[in-house]
């Protein structure tokens, strides 16, 4: 089937009909181009969302209190619920074995910090030692808040990379004092966070210190923890959903919040949220494939149509060939060979164009939700397979039709 003879026949037919061949190939190229672009953007969105979730530990759960909306046990709605250290202690006492990292935090919005002549304002959070892992914070200098800081109410703080860069410029911040509201704090560590600047412009205090300084008593803003890794993703989602449910019930009971109240006790379950996004992503990917394949299909139908016209146009030639002794199979192969060749070549062109386009434009469309649009090798290979197969399908039916024409009928054609 791949004899030089047949190739030269195909090239002859193609070179004599350049426009026809070009138009055929063009539709296939566009189809593949769109498929590749869609898949690339789909991959980019997946990367983007993954990056969003990389800010914090993926299996993190955060619980915070709010204002009740439902009357319960004689208490009016609109009551503010305040979590205390005791709530945290209770949760860790009851469920400690099920948790991997845990921390309660106390947050204040922004504070002004200064070092020498540099002054700027940053978010501050009072945290426990485990918080480092809950935040996915990587220590690049010094250390994180430790248990001693917590126990002894030290005025040690850990600052984000951005804070360091702004306040200290090139100076080594470790052991230096920064001032806020007239109080000096010692920098003991610098962290970086995959979440970027926004996450890195924070200052962490020991929780106990912060509660004392701000006169918060035993108040805490929220309770955060992660769960140990489960064998499967599904299992992890199931476990964490169940655990969060139990803790929610416990806390609601303690604070007399109605079980159906959705705002007195709030929580964010990363892994469950992530699952929603991944499910959405999977659906979106499916959709992209569907649209891509549909556009490819349109191209293939175009090829099939053009092949039909080609067969019609070549009816007389087919008749002559049959009169001279061409076997039906040789007619089928002649046309099939041409269509596979044309679809493969133009498909590859579309594929390469698509990849180049992704490469060129890809870096320019880095947004919060699209990052690194790319097409992996598997996809490229499957596209190529789809191509060759579709070329064969697009060519086969017209070819069979051509082979079935009776020579006597074909020869009469003018």
């Amino acid at each position: 089937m791949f004899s030089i003879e047949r190739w030269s026949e195909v090239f002859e037919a193609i070179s004599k009909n350049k426009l026809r061949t070009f138009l055929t190939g063009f539709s296939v190229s566009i189809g593949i181009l769109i498929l590749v672009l869609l898949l690339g953007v789909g991959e980019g969105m997946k990367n983007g969302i993954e990056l969003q979730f990389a800010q914090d530990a993926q299996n993190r759960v955060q619980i915070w209190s709010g204002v009740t909306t439902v009357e319960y046990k004689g208490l009016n709605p609109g009551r503010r619920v305040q979590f205390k250290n005791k709530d945290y202690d209770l949760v860790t006492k009851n469920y400690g074995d099920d948790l991997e990292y845990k921390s309660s935090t106390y947050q204040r919005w922004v504070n002004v910090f200064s070092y020498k002549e540099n002054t700027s304002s940053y978010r501050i959070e009072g945290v426990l030692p485990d918080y480092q892992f809950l935040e996915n914070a990587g220590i690049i200098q010094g250390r994180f808040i430790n248990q001693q800081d917590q126990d002894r109410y030290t005025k040690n703080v850990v600052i984000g990379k951005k804070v360091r860069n702004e306040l200290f410029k090139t100076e080594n911040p470790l052991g230096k004092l920064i001032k806020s509201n007239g109080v000096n704090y010692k920098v003991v560590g610098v962290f970086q966070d995959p979440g970027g600047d926004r996450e890195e412009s924070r200052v962490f205090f020991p929780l106990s210190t912060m509660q004392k300084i701000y006169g918060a008593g035993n108040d805490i803003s929220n309770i955060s923890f992660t769960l140990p890794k489960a064998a499967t993703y599904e299992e992890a989602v199931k476990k964490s959903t169940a655990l969060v449910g139990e803790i929610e019930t416990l806390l609601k009971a303690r604070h007399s919040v109605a079980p159906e109240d959705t705002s007195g006790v709030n929580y964010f379950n990363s892994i469950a949220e992530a699952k929603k996004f991944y499910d959405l992503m999977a659906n979106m990917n499916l959709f992209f494939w569907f649209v891509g394949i549909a556009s490819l299909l349109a191209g293939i139908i175009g090829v099939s149509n053009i092949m039909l016209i080609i067969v019609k146009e070549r009816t007389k030639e087919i008749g002559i060939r049959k009169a001279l002794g061409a076997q039906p199979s040789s007619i089928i192969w002649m046309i099939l060979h041409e269509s596979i060749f044309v679809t493969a070549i133009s498909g590859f062109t579309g594929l390469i164009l698509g990849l180049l386009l992704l490469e060129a434009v890809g870096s320019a469309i880095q947004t919060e939700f699209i990052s690194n649009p790319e097409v992996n090798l598997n996809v490229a290979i499957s596209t190529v397979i789809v191509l060759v197969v579709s070329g064969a399908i697009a060519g086969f039916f017209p070819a069979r039709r051509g082979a079935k024409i009776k020579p006597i009928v074909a020869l009469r054609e003018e």
Partner: protein
Amino acid sequence: MIEIKDLHKSYKVGKNSLHVLKGINFSVKEGELVSIMGSSGSGKSTLLNILGMLDEAEKGTYHLDGVEIKNLSEKIAANYRNKFLGFIFQSFNLINYKNALDNVALPLYYQNVKRKERTEIAMSYLEKVGLAQWAKHLPTELSGGQKQRVAIARALAGQPKVILADELTGALDSTTSYEIMELIQEINDEGKTILVVTHEDDIAHMTKRIVNLRDGIIIDDRKVDQVKAKAHV
């Protein structure tokens, strides 16, 4: 070479059936040059198509070189056409994107002859019809007479048992027609069996035998004194 007995063929035209061949008995020996004559509708083209295995008869037998031609599959028919028959058509039927040489070589391609050999054989037949220097020209660059010569070379290239010519001079002026007939006579003199379908008397008289067809039966079958085309050129 050709043996036909009681051949019938009819076509369906709407609801009616048109009986075109109504029992043809006819034989051709090796080396004969026969013309089949008749007005249009006499069935001569149908007969030629059946002889050429482009069409099939309903009734009757057809032997070609001792082989019975019957219930042929497409594949076998193609094979027989390739081995036994050479066609010459009124409208030449050359493939217009192939040059003269490639057109002549086409039957050999379907006989699986290697390219180099094919080109050599095709060239020798082009020389025979006097068109060696036109080998690389496309059919559109050739005159009608030249095209028919290429077609004749193509019909000969496959070394068939019988050459079937359908109104081969129908699209040519009389001078060119005679030149073509001269070539046909030459080939016949070398021993090739040739059947010519024509409705022109002068062309028919350049063959050795005339078979007259009317309304689907042979009304006359006689040997004639061959008029040499050379005298007219």
